């Protein structure tokens, strides 16, 4: 299925969007006017801070890549590694979901909620990365909800990884197999006729 260029393109685009969104949600893509222009800046003491976490699952950036006056990328190898790990998991999820969708179309199986279920973990992972950012910017100030988010925030990244792995397993071993079985039965029936 990975040889199918459209499936591949779809999954890569999805994973890239997810990766950018995740980096933005943790503040590693910065969209406010901040720099005086395009350029690179690296901390002179980057070796000391490269593995220093300053919040759960957030490591110190060691450099700034300024794309324009108002777009900067904060470079943190550890944050980037986590973003790539999540993005790869999103990518494989999308591949399987796409394939599941295709199988369904081939066999004239009406789209069911199962395919969407396979996509949900990827979507949740994206939300979980940015939920605290979204919450603050939304202007809602319910202290109980905020407290819940603050206390559960350290769980977001591990939960995202677990959800994505679970989603991959669910899509590949349950939905796709089930659809394939239905497909085979469908074709066998046609052949008999």
């Amino acid at each position, binding site marked *: *299925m990975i040889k*199918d260029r*459209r*499936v591949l*393109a*779809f999954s890569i*685009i*999805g994973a890239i*969007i*997810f990766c950018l*969104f995740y980096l*933005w949600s943790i*503040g590693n893509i*910065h*969209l*406010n*006017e*901040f720099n*005086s222009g395009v350029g690179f800046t690296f*901390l002179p*003491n980057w070796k000391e*801070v490269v593995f220093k*976490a*300053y*919040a*759960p699952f957030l490591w*110190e*950036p*060691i*450099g*700034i890549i300024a794309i324009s*006056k108002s777009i900067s990328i*904060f470079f943190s190898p550890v944050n980037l590694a986590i973003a790539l790990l999540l993005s790869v998991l999103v990518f494989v999820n*999308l591949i399987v979901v*796409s394939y599941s*969708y*295709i*199988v369904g*179309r*081939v066999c004239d199986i009406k789209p069911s909620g199962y395919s969407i279920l396979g996509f949900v973990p990827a*979507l949740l992972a*994206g*939300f979980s990365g*940015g939920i605290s*950012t*979204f919450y*603050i*910017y*939304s*202007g809602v*100030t*319910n*202290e109980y909800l*905020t*407290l819940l988010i*603050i*206390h559960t*925030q*350290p769980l977001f990244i591990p939960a995202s990884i677990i959800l994505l792995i679970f989603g991959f397993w669910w899509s590949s071993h349950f939905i796709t197999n089930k659809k394939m079985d239905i497909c085979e039965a469908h074709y066998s029936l046609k052949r008999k006729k």
Partner: protein
Amino acid sequence: MKKKVKNHFHAGQLVVSLLVLISAFFMIIVLSKHIGTSISDSDFAVHCSHEGRIVGANVGQIDKTIYTVEDYEDEMIRVNVSKDDIPVIDNPKYISVTESEFFLDPHDPVFIVEASHEILLLPQKIMVWHQVVNGMVDGQQASIVYSPLTGSVVGLFGTVGGRTLTFGSSGKLLNSNIVLYDRKTESEWSQILAKSVEENEESKTIKTFPVDWSTWELAKARYPDARVLSSDTGVIRPYGDDPYGSYLHKNTYYQTGGPFFSRMNTDGRLDDKEIVLGLKKDGSYLGILKSKIKEEGAVNTTVGGYPVVAVHDCSTDSVRVYSRMVNGEEYRFYWRAHRLIDQNGEEWSIRGAYIGRVYTDSMSHEEQDRMMKLYTEKTANDAVLEWIPSFDVMWFAWSAFYPSTELYR
């Protein structure tokens, strides 16, 4: 089968659905920052038409509770942040007003430190990520400490009992207020209390100096030669993105709702996020509603019976509190024709310095101006009103630390 798979894959549908879904979410977040909740320019306008009208009054205290160090120790909490996770600034770099223009907006809050020989401006958008600047003020070790969750900024001199302190962030909160730690002794200190919150340090209170809230637009106009804290802080943070809320938008943490974390006392005399000027004098406490000071220009009141005056500085839209005792005599102050006048008709500067007898009702403005210049040259600084330790703070935090506080509203 493989061929059929290819023919039946409507990739466009999936790609479009995915893009729409993710883009919509992304757009909601980005737009929510910029649309609908922005504070208009008129909300930032400084009104200086106060002409001595008295609109507020002390409403007295409702609770006489005074907390002990043990109470504070029990109440301190740690939320997802460890010691030194918030990187304080130890070697602050300062740049000129012109160099700072590119990343400060006119309405961005800045904190003003008026030292004897220099003016320092500290942008809130930098301070919110560091909360503490350790440096020198008037030749003394000092720390400027900002606690975003309580909206308070306090200047602390770093010498206590012969020891010199430099502060780091402990990662703990007390009534949502930052708890500092001294790097030499590891003892913990509260910003609002300006004292140690540890048993063995109970008696030690730290001396404070005024730090004024203003906006970039007003501060740079008033102090064009000031030095501005640089964003070159030694670490990289998304300055401009505030992790708690926004002072440029309505209905964020800074304006509405309650505190996120527990507090020792709840006082319904004001909304939680109303800004008061909190002041302490000899074990008595008073919160003065900041909007009332702006409205009246000069608020003559008392804290624990001691006479004080809170004065609005139109040029920076900030507020200072002074003692009303001058040479053993109790004074009252009023605004007349944009000037701070005492009951004898003598003028005082907004920083509490005596200017002289320049005002009478029969004088024209031109005569007043001419006389003011003469007296300024001759008599400035002959007498100075004593600054009463005070700072802007959200009401919920002030009343949580000091249940016995009086309130002027």
